[in-house]
């Protein structure tokens, strides 16, 4: 496989080089004065709206797996899915919803199978230290999802999904405007028996009997209500309430004696957010207040576990942005957060208070050099945490700024989760934050003028050193697991991406591709016989690649997704691994008018080559499967 990836890189570079030459010859040099982009120097990946539309009925985990450099570790459709950036852990990937972190304070991570793309209007990723613009803790990076006000005055949309293995999804979006107020309501109901056939490669020598996956069913109800008010030219208000209930059975790995119906999980959450924005010629003030409630009930019949966990989080956030000149911009802010957990797995009610103060300055130093400095200081339960400075620079190598060199250096940390601290038995209240130091350097190319062929491409080398990495291990007597600040991890690698739009009338091609190389190694020996020093972390592929190619012709489109996941080690000694796999999906669709209403249909064939694979050892995944989507735009004309 290494040969393949090498070849891919060669193709990338060839394409780029040729195109660059082309640019040099054709582009006339023009210098325009642009307003300073507050997100220059950051490493950011945007998911375009076409990709979002094409995956409207999917979960965010499926979308990210095939369209982003983030590695998604998934137990399969409807099952737990977590994200890992740059070789770090799932808790090091922050998920922000409209700028507010939604990772569970208990487990520190987000289950991406519970995020429906239908509820998201914008998706972007901030890699590594770039995530510090929102909050600390994203040692790997952050995934930012947000909602934006629909441009239309009123609309009504209905989407119905029919899929293999009795998968059904119904989605409704309705919006209307009254005076200065705009309301948007989204409803989603998703259910699946998820009883797919699979080849069992764990139980018989020499044959793989076909069986049906059991206990993988799930059900999801959700509502998102948004209200936007444009009070006047300078003041806007946004109110968002998101309610969701997820029920799922938890399937067993196929090496285990089947215990039908043994494990199940019910997750419910309520997320509400009020935002006030005041904008002037030179400033922007944002005040946010959020209340999140999470309920998790896990049951395991044979082990007689019925665990109930409730989390209440209250967060306030203020951010003031001031444009001093065309070349200098300031930003100051503060946030305060209170988490309260009531869990049958904790000895009593646990609370954590956090306070943060941050300031940043963006400056254009010369015509070609942009700089970004950010400082952050936080307090947790009145304990002062280490000071976090970060610096970013972006230098335009060409006058037209199509090619730029970017670099960033930052300190970051990740707080222990409340489970790390208080889980009974095993929790360790003396844990220290995980400390990260990151540096990166990258090259970015962007076509500056609208042309037949538009390319954005970025190549980044990253380096992240994490100390005090929290590791859960059995206690010496092997009775329960307990966390400690044991591990040191050095993760480095390459992220490369290309995004290209090619207008070859009457056809339009869109290509997105990501290749990531990740070397995430344990450092040092903890005990005399420890042989994990220098070994790759488990379930972090060294190579991962995905690409999507979409061809549009009139109202028709055809897309191919190819998604390669390299070998992943499954033990810390690196003597066992899961083999690589490549998945290919084909999506075809068209839109048309029916009785003056817009209708769109889309057919997806997932895993078209019917590959047998397991993302996690002994958790089977479905073979070829189908999905039909019908979208009605019922907006009255």
């Amino acid at each position, binding site marked *: 496989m290494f040969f393949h990836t090498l070849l891919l890189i060669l193709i990338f570079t060839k394409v780029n080089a040729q195109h660059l030459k082309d640019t040099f010859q054709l582009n006339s040099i023009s210098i325009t004065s642009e307003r300073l982009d507050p997100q220059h120097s950051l490493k950011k990946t945007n998911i375009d709206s076409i990709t979002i539309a094409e995956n409207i009925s999917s979960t965010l985990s499926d979308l990210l797996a095939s369209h982003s450099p983030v590695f998604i570790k998934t137990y399969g459709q409807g099952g737990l899915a977590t994200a890992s950036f740059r070789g770090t852990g799932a808790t090091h990937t922050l998920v922000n919803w409209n700028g507010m972190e939604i990772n569970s304070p208990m487990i520190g991570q987000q289950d991406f199978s519970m995020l429906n793309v239908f509820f998201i209007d914008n998706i972007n990723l901030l890699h590594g230290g770039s995530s510090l613009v929102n909050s600390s803790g994203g040692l790997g990076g952050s995934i930012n999802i947000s909602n934006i006000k629909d441009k239309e005055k009123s609309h009504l949309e209905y989407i119905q999904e029919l899929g293999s293995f009795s998968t059904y999804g119904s989605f409704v979006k309705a919006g209307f405007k009254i005076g200065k107020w705009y309301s948007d309501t989204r409803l989603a109901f998703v259910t699946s028996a998820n009883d797919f056939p699979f080849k069992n490669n764990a139980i018989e020598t020499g044959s793989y009997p076909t069986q049906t996956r059991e206990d993988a069913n799930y059900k999801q109800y959700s509502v998102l209500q948004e209200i936007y008010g444009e009070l006047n030219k300078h003041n806007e208000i946004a109110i968002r309430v998101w309610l969701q209930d997820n029920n799922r059975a938890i399937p067993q790995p196929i090496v285990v*004696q089947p215990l039908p119906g043994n494990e199940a999980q019910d997750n419910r959450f309520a997320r509400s957010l009020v935002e006030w924005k005041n904008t002037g010629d030179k400033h922007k003030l944002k005040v946010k207040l959020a209340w999140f409630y999470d309920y998790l009930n896990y049951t395991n019949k044979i082990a007689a576990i019925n665990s109930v966990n409730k989390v209440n989080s209250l967060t306030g956030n203020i951010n003031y942005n001031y444009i001093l000149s065309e070349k200098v911009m300031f930003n100051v802010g503060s946030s305060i957060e209170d988490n309260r957990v009531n869990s049958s797995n904790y000895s009593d009610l646990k609370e954590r208070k956090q306070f943060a103060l941050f300031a940043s300055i963006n400056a254009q130093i010369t015509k070609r050099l942009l700089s970004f400095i950010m400082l952050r200081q936080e307090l947790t339960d009145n304990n002062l945490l280490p000071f976090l400075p970060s610096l970013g620079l972006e230098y335009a190598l060409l006058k037209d700024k199509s090619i730029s060199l970017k670099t960033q250096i930052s300190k970051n940390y990740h707080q222990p989760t409340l489970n790390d601290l208080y889980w009974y038995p095993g929790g360790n209240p003396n844990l220290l934050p995980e400390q990260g130091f990151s540096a990166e350097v990258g090259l970015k190319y962007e076509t500056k003028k609208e042309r037949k062929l538009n390319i954005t491409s970025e190549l980044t080398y990253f380096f992240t050193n994490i100390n005090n990495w929290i590791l859960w291990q059995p206690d010496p*007597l092997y009775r329960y697991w307990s966390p400690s600040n044991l591990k040191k991890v050095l993760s480095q690698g390459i992220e490369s991406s290309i995004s290209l739009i090619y207008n070859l009338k009457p056809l339009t091609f869109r290509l997105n591709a990501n290749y990531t190389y990740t070397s995430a190694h344990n450092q040092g020996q903890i005990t005399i016989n420890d042989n994990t020093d220098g070994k790759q972390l488990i379930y972090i592929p060294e190579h991962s690649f995905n690409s999507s190619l979409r061809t549009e012709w009139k109202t028709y489109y055809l897309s191919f997704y190819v998604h390669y996941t390299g070998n992943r080690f499954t033990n*810390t000694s690196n003597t066992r691994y899961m083999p690589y796999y490549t998945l290919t999906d084909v999506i075809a669709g068209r839109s048309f008018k029916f009785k003056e209403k817009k209708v769109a249909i889309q057919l997806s064939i997932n895993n078209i080559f019917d590959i047998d694979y397991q993302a996690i050892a002994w958790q089977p995944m479905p073979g070829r499967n189908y999905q039909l989507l019908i979208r009605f735009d019922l907006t009255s004309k």
Partner: protein
Amino acid sequence: MRSFKHTFIFRLMLLLIIPMLSCNKGSDFGEQSTDASNYIPAKGVFIISEGNFTWGNGIVSFYNFNTHAIANDIFYAVNKRPLGDVPISMQQMNNLIYIVVNNSGKIEAVSPFDFTSVKTITGMTSPRFIQQINANKAYVSDLRSPVINILNLQTNTITGQINTIKSTDRMLLYNNLVFVCNWSQYYVHQNNNTVQVINTNTDKLIDSIVVGKEPNSMVLDKNNKLWVLCSGGYYNEEIPSLICINPNTHSVEKTLLFANKYLSPTSLDINTTKDTLYCVSNDIYKMSINETAIPSIPFIKKGTRLFYSLAVSPSTNEIFISDAIDYTQNGFVFRYNSNGNVLDSVRAGITPSWFSFN
């Protein structure tokens, strides 16, 4: 310009086609091992490494006494599939090797010549250990159900059950009696401070002897006295004890207490002449059967190692001790002589816990 366009589109297509060509239809898609060797029969010891619960990564290794080399994952090497989830013990009976795979609820019967799978025996809830009774019959203890399953060694099927009320664990055969440790109360909520006695002629529970909490291992000494090691309980409820039972009268003759509640001793074994006991209690302890107290000075100090299990080779009197390290990486097995000098060490699988001498 035109040629550029064409080569460009061509490359674009190539970009997508290459990964497609690498698709691995029909090939291995389960967890692979890079540390698997074939079993070649010799004088030596089989070592079972439990692996992690629900991960299906437990293995059987074989340490060869002549070459002093270890062959790991010998079941996977020949059968090209995982052994299962949490292999816990093995017995060689008649002309087969039986490996109990606890969380897969099965026993894998394999050939003693090359380890190829002969039969997968199912029909148990949570099998733990096997005790052979005669050429036709063996008992299989069970963690999650209050029974002992009866295994017919001619048909290799479960043919019956003995109701024990309690969860059953280690067993030891003495004349026509089997002594059974009631080690766990986690799934079957009954007091776990007894050793039960079963009559092997009638397959009936006939007696129960009160010992300490969590009896986890047993041996018979040269005087035909039964020694039972009790850890003191999951939550260290009691001071651990070493109890000497007269298996003829079922009465406790001696109770030796450990120094404190938190020592959690395990892995009781006895030497070739059956007069010296060994166990793991953080460090390794050694004592004569005539001792009147648990020694306060360890026989072998652990240092930064995490001793998990031990066994004494009946042929060489050498002591095999496992270091689980952190229970998540491949552990070590040390070979010591009876003076406590280390002879060599080898790397096995995750959490080496069971030794079967060949």
